């Protein structure tokens, strides 16, 4: 009997000989290597920074640049997530600071990070590198928060008996990470990674071309291409750009995310097989690859084995801490005091800046918050109005669902910002055109969260309740009132929390746009933030960012959290 330890097994098939899958793997590898080399020697001469070419043939290179940037930002996000989430989950004192901080950070619009990041990096690195790194950090800020929350929550919900088992069998930190924490969080991490990449694409245009004060930064990439195309009013170029973007997203979906989802299915905690596991042709293909299996057996498994052996030897399991927490160590006190000092210093400096703002400017900020609030509300209401009927229709009808679900997923994966310029072009002539298009962008960016949640909620309504509703002859309206809406409520709340956060963040790209060579803006807090970034007006940037963060956090705390608790308590199906 042969037995292979398959920590990353890919199905059987070692009897098969060299096949089409292997050819593909080889080709893929070659393509990757070539791309790397080309990138290293700084791409074709047509990509002459900072001039953004609108020739369609540069698009593959631009796409590659953008994907590399996203990947770098994503890797940074993962590292940040693993460290931050672990600190918050395992240290009760750190948790009390880190989790509220995360809550605030995720409501800071990405552009507000820009000046700090750019100025900081420019002090250390040469100009071009600093711009490139700033762009990566900006993308990072649009990807990282939900990942961190997901990892933290996974760590907090690892079942007690698995924790005890890993303590009693003396798993050290490495083995706990590898065999307990990472597998347990895998599904949530993959799911949130997909969300993060969607978020990254959404803000790509803002992250590849930005103006700070006098200086313009342009980084070759899909986002910059689209931005430049919109700026020149070049519809053909916009369409080419959108096409390239959609293709890139689809390829990533098929070659990365689907296989990952199919693979992570094994990390489900449920002790039953699921009816409808996610599948991926590419994953199956890889599983049949002779080369990969050979690599896996000859290289990865021994490497993994050797690493585990080292880790087992080097790191003895940590002793269990006493239950009563213990007192603060001097190091902790020093660290805490240092941190407090920095925060206090920063805060006084910030207040200094804020005091320099005139009363009329504060008035503008208040008006801006109000205007953006109205837009967010309107976009939410429109989204609700169409997603509830459509989502319920799809969710309660498996035939419709099998047809529409993949379609909706593809449509939803197109970042709204990319096609936004086309809408602006159509709407800008109308009175209040930018107002309309701002609401439209918020809607396009956030309605999908709602739709997916409504579909999930509708398909979770138990069949017997639906039969009962019909058996006791409830009419359509009564069915909605007594069954469907209450059953949807928790899902609606979850969807709306995400959608509202997203809409606020989208305001920075929807209320202020450069189009056809001119700046079009409307009254709104997002426009204020973008405008003051572009002008290098840091005190205004700080004030408007703070205003937005405070508003969003307050709305979350005072409204959404209550709705969430209500949903948890009253409307949960058990």
């Amino acid at each position, binding site marked *: 009997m042969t037995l292979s330890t398959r920590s990353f097994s890919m199905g059987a098939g070692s009897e098969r000989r060299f096949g089409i899958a292997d050819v593909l793997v080889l080709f893929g590898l070659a393509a990757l290597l070539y791309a790397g080399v080309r990138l290293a020697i700084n791409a074709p001469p047509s990509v002459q920074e900072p001039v953004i070419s609108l020739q369609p043939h540069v698009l593959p290179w631009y796409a590659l640049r953008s994907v590399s940037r996203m990947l770098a930002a994503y890797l940074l996000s993962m590292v940040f997530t693993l460290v931050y989430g672990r600190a918050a989950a395992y240290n009760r004192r750190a948790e009390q600071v880190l989790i509220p901080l995360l809550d605030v950070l995720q409501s800071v619009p990405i552009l507000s990070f820009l000046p700090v990041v750019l100025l900081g990096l420019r002090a250390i690195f040469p100009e071009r590198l600093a711009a490139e790194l700033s762009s990566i950090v900006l993308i990072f800020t649009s990807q990282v928060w939900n990942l961190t929350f997901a990892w933290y929550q996974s760590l907090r919900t690892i079942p007690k008996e698995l924790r005890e088992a890993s303590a009693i069998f003396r798993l050290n930190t490495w083995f706990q990470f590898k065999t307990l924490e990472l597998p347990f969080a895998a599904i949530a991490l993959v799911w949130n990674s997909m969300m993060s990449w969607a978020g990254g694409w959404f803000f790509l245009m803002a992250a590849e071309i930005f103006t700070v004060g006098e200086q313009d930064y342009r980084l070759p990439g899909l986002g910059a291409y689209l931005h430049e195309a919109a700026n020149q009013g070049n519809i053909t170029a916009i369409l080419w750009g959108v096409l390239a973007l959609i293709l890139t997203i689809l390829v990533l979906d098929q070659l990365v995310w689907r296989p990952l989802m199919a693979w992570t299915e094994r990390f489900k905690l449920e002790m039953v097989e699921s009816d409808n596991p996610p599948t991926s042709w590419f994953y199956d293909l890889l599983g049949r690859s002779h080369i990969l299996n050979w690599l896996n057996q000859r290289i990865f498994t021994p490497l993994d084995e050797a690493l585990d052996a080292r880790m087992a030897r080097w790191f003895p*399991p940590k002793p269990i801490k006493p239950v009563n927490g213990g007192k603060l160590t001097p190091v902790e006190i020093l660290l805490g005091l240092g941190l407090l000092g920095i925060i206090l210093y920063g805060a006084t400096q910030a207040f200094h800046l804020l005091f320099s703002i005139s009363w009329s400017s504060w008035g503008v900020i208040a008006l801006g918050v109000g205007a953006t609030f109205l837009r967010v509300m309107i976009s939410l209401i429109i989204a609700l109005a169409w997603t509830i009927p459509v989502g319920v229709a799809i969710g309660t009808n498996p035939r419709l669902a099998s047809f529409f679900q993949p379609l909706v997923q593809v449509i939803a994966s197109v970042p709204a910002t990319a096609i936004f310029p086309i809408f602006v072009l159509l709407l800008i002539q109308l009175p209040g055109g930018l107002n309309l298009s701002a609401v439209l962008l918020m809607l396009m960016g956030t309605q999908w969260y709602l739709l997916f949640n409504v579909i999930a909620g509708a398909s979770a309504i138990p069949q017997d309740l639906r039969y009962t509703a019909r058996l006791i002859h409830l009419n359509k309206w009564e069915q909605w009132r007594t069954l469907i809406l209450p059953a949807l409520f928790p899902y609606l709340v979850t969807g709306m929390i995400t959608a509202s956060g997203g809409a606020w963040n989208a305001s920075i790209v929807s209320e202020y746009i450069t189009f056809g060579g001119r700046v079009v803006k409307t009254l709104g807090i997002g426009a204020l933030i973008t405008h003051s970034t572009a002008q290098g007006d840091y005190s205004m940037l700080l004030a408007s960012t703070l205003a937005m963060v405070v508003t969003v956090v307050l709305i979350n705390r005072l409204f959404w959290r209550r709705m969430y608790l209500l949903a948890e308590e009253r409307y949960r199906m058990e």
Partner: protein
Amino acid sequence: MNLNSQTSLVELKHVQQVYGSGARRFTAIQDINLTIREGEFVALLGPSGCGKSTLLRIITGLQSPTEGAVLYRGQPLKDVNPHATIVFQTFALFPWLTVYENVDLALKVRGIPAEARHNRTLELLDKVGLDGFETAYPRELSGGMRQKVGFARAIAVEPELLCLDEPFSALDLLSAESLRGELMELWLSGSIPTRAILMVTHNIEEAVFMADRVILMDKEPGRVVGTLEINLPHPRQRKSPAFQAVVDQVYAALAGQTQPEAVELGSAPGEPGTTRRLPQVRINELTGLLEHLVEIPGKREDIYRLAEPLGADSDHLLDLIEAEELLGFVRVQQGDVILTDLGETFAEARILARKEIFATRIRRLPIFRWLLSMLRKADEQRLEWDVVQAALELEFPPDEAERQLDTIVDWGRYAEVLAYDDNEGMIYLEMEPTVEK
């Protein structure tokens, strides 16, 4: 130079576990002294909530006690005991690892080289009868087979002290029985290097079937109330009179803890003294037991004979009898339950009369007296659930307080002394009979 060479493996001295502080201070375990010697199979037996699982975690070093000393081979235990291991009630297998990998992991983290691990894992899986299931994932296995993986993993690390945390209670009857047999065979034949076994259980028959010594525990606070040596030869026959006599003896010891009435009823919340915890028992169970007893000639029955007709496990059965006793419907004498006259009247009464009897009985209980008087004083004679629960949390841990209130409301609704509106989360006083003294 002792003939039995019974060196002690584990020794607990005045071990105490306290949770919370100030007014919300609960003693989970009080002053436990015990010794586990080499060659012994010891069972910790007691109702749920008596702290036996906590004790197991203290013995293995997963948790350190608030007070007292834990010695292993005479040395104080500071960390997780490397010579001990646990077989968990819920198996605690890693669902993403195969059967083989689950066992292999336990060896891998100890730095054992691949070759040796491979042979040992296969040998162990063979020993517990999982040959051919190496590449299966836990979710593909039945409960019994999952627990076999749990045993294989535990034995793999060759523990001196094998701890079993209710290992059979999540299994179906047949799997549990066969696995018990297999474990006893491994243990008695000496084919595993284990020096002592400690099993936590609430199943009396299981303890008597397997252990050399049963340590009896009771709750509030968790404490040891007795020890019983079992000298029956293996394999033990459940139906034999000698076996049943021991089971009866255990029931007598556990259910016969009747104390003077004042202690038994306890004090009301907020007053000095301990508030009596209501056993978590539903009305239909209470009436079911009485209806069963009233049919039996002599109106008395051995406790262990009640488990089967009532479909209750021994733990819940003890809770049920405790509740009946508290209400005055039965008496317990030497492991027998005896129906009282009141209990007989209740069992034979119609529904309304039953409710009346029940109402007068629960009004005696301090916890009900307390709640009813609060309700009478309250605005519109109603109180929020959360308020009452918060008050109870001064006496009980939070989830226990919630369960207590659940039981209070359940009993109170049946007796029609209370009403509860779930929508508003309000507890109301029902109309009381006009003549009340």
